[in-house]
């Protein structure tokens, strides 16, 4: 039985098929989950993908966190299930309180859509278990509100607990401490702004995202 990864779809989500494609290409089974359903049975891991859930109205992720699927995702996370939030999915996870901090508008005035280099800072997370610490990966970003921020005590806690999973090499958006991705205390919930699912094919210019998606599949198995 291959590992089933549920991919949550909100109105306005637009990266769900990229996620399913990446999972399927690495031997898993991607399964779309409508945000109005709260049934995660049979799912081994969850991806909250990128896009503009509920049009990003009010704030990115602010309305999405009230969807029935998110209550189920929160229970799944508490039970130790691997949960990955990519881009808008990261914003949803912070709004839902599953990850600390918030994503503010990019430093500078631009929507950024380009490859970035990120460094693996820890292999102790559901996203990096199969990666090598210190490895630099080419993964694209595609966001306007990807500038991670948090108060200083939260930042200190993230550092002390080794919860900064990925850092940018050449900070593109002003994120505090070059943060590209973080995890929760239990290390099973990870959020990141770059799109590893879009770096799983030579055709797309990089396969560096594969090790991250493979790590998620391994964490789910």
């Amino acid at each position, binding site marked *: 039985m291959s590992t089933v990864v549920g991919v949550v779809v909100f109105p306005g989500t637009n990266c769900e098929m990229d996620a399913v494609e990446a999972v399927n290409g690495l031997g898993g089974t991607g399964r779309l989950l409508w945000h109005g359903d709260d049934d995660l049975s049979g799912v081994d891991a969850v991806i909250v993908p990128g896009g503009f859930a509920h049009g990003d109205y009010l704030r990115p992720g602010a309305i999405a966190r009230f969807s029935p699927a998110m209550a189920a995702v929160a229970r799944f996370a508490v039970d130790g299930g691997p949960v990955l939030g990519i881009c808008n999915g990261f914003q949803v996870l912070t709004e839902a309180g599953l990850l600390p*901090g*918030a994503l503010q*508008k990019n430093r500078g005035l631009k929507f950024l859509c380009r490859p970035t280099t990120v460094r693996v800072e820890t292999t102790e997370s559901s996203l990096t278990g199969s990666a090598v610490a210190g490895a630099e990966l080419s993964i694209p970003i595609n966001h306007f509100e990807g500038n991670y921020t948090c108060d200083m005590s939260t930042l200190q806690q993230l550092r002390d607990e080794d919860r900064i999973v990925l850092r940018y090499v050449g900070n593109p958006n002003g994120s505090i401490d070059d943060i590209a991705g973080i995890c929760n205390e239990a290390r099973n919930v990870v959020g990141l702004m770059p799109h590893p699912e879009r770096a799983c094919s030579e055709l797309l210019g990089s396969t560096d995202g594969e090790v991250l998606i493979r790590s998620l599949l391994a964490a789910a198995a």
Partner: protein
Amino acid sequence: MQFSVLVDIRLRDGISDPAGATIERALPVLGYEGIGGVTVGKTIRFTIEAADVGAAREAAAELTESFLTNPVIEDAELTVEALVAEASPEPGT
């Protein structure tokens, strides 16, 4: 009683405000001098049913903190007013 609520939401100090920065940068080009500190926020208006103005403010503040704003990046100021100007006198006074 019905009350009108205006929630004035601003980005906290130090939070990136590209819209405000862009407007401020454009002002001298348009001939407006001496204007600074431009920030762009948002306002949300709604009505609320409550026993008195204190209860209305309390309910609106809870809603603002839990949903309408993200306290990590935003601050808000509330203005709460009785919807009908000649409201009946407050009970118990």
